[in-house]
């Protein structure tokens, strides 16, 4: 170390960022969908459970969730997700916390998607004898996802940038490498610019693609 930033360390750090973001995006999508279904279900208790989840995790700072996963969950409660390595445990907890946190936002984006669907769609599904689960799976969720691509895209982009918070628990992603580099080399504008450019490259094309996708897949009524 101490020889400054090399292309290979930079790529491996951003690789780690991408992996962290990809796994967390899948987790957040699954969790958020489940919570959204709870929130629109006809059962009062399940609705409350969904609302509670969103209110708790949407209003908690991500840094606090990250730190509590190590200091709270791992050290105090002894929940170690990878006993073979400290780095592995931190990485897995980062995936969990990013998923849990962004799941709340995915849920709300999806719920806004559900709200774009006219009431008649659900009524038609119910009146032909589909159960709640079948109406959700075949009629409401497909239309909700297509109506919510733009807000879901914003959540995904926020998630990619929020992976930098995982640096506080020592996950060696891009922001962590930046801190290490600054510590070794001293801070310079060029270092910030390199990392900023890295995130622009990750998020900008993605945003453009999602916008065009949301136009192409919009449900015509």
């Amino acid at each position: 170390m101490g020889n400054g930033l090399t292309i290979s360390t930079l790529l491996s750090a951003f690789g780690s960022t991408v992996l962290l973001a990809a796994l967390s995006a899948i987790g957040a999508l699954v969790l958020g969908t489940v919570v959204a279904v709870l929130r629109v279900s006809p059962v009062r208790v399940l609705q409350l459970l969904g609302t509670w989840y969103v209110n708790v995790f949407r209003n908690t700072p991500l840094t606090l969730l990250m730190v509590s996963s190590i200091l709270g969950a791992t050290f105090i409660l002894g929940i170690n997700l990878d006993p073979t390595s400290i780095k592995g445990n931190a990485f897995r907890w980062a995936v969990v916390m990013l998923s849990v946190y962004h799941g709340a936002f995915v849920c709300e984006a999806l719920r806004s998607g559900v709200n774009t669907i006219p009431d008649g769609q659900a009524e038609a599904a119910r009146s032909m004898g589909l159960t709640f689960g079948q109406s959700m799976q075949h009629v409401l969720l497909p239309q909700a996802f297509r109506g919510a691509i733009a807000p879901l895209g914003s959540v995904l982009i926020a998630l990619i940038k929020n992976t930098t918070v995982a640096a506080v628990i020592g996950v060696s992603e891009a922001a962590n490498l930046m801190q290490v580099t600054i510590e070794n080399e001293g801070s310079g504008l060029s270092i910030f610019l390199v990392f900023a450019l890295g995130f622009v490259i990750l998020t900008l094309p993605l945003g453009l693609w999602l916008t065009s996708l949301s136009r192409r897949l919009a449900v015509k009524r």
Partner: protein
Amino acid sequence: MTEPLVVLKGVNKHFGDLHVLQDINLSIGKGEVVVVIGPSGSGKSTLCRTINRLETFETGSITIDGVPLPEEGKELAKLRADVGMVFQSFNLFAHKTILDNVTLGPIKARKIPRAEAEKRAMELLERVGVAHQAEKFPAQLSGGQQQRVAIARSLAMDPKVMLFDEPTSALDPEMITEVLDVMVALAKEGMTMVVVTHEMGFARKAANRVVFMADGQIVEENTPEGFFTAPKSDRAKDFLGKILTH
């Protein structure tokens, strides 16, 4: 009247303070076509929606083929599969093709194999005259075509009774006939139908009975001819006077 298929006994429902269904008693026989008519806000659409429990009711009972309406859940879903419903605003699934709209119910609710469901769906689409549009999406069809697809979608479930909630009210005048023709043909084949409509031509041509509702009550029941030429109640005379004068 033939053996009763749908029986409503003492059904009451409120929307807040508004008593929308007041002690409704109605019996609909197998193969009977009942037209429900009345001023807006009279509760006729609510009555129609209550029969398959899209609207809940507070007191009274509704039975279909002798079976009382269950509460929410799988049992209710099973019962709804036997009751076809056609809406004012068609409500075709916007993200699915015409063919998929018609096969969804049979495949998922009836567990019929896809190939068989598609064959039957094409027959039904042929019958309502939109088979050549099977691969299109609902938004690409005219209102009249969409409503005929909606009828085919209901028929695909082989329902015991079909409910029509103002099926022609959202259509342009020149498309009303094509939908009514399909409905008249259905009636002639012996389908049990409850039709909320203002189409007197249809009532005269196909209905066995006209039920006149006002302010949440059934005011009068009569044959179509009897009702339109010699209404008994003042409320019905007043209503017919308003809609027949122009």
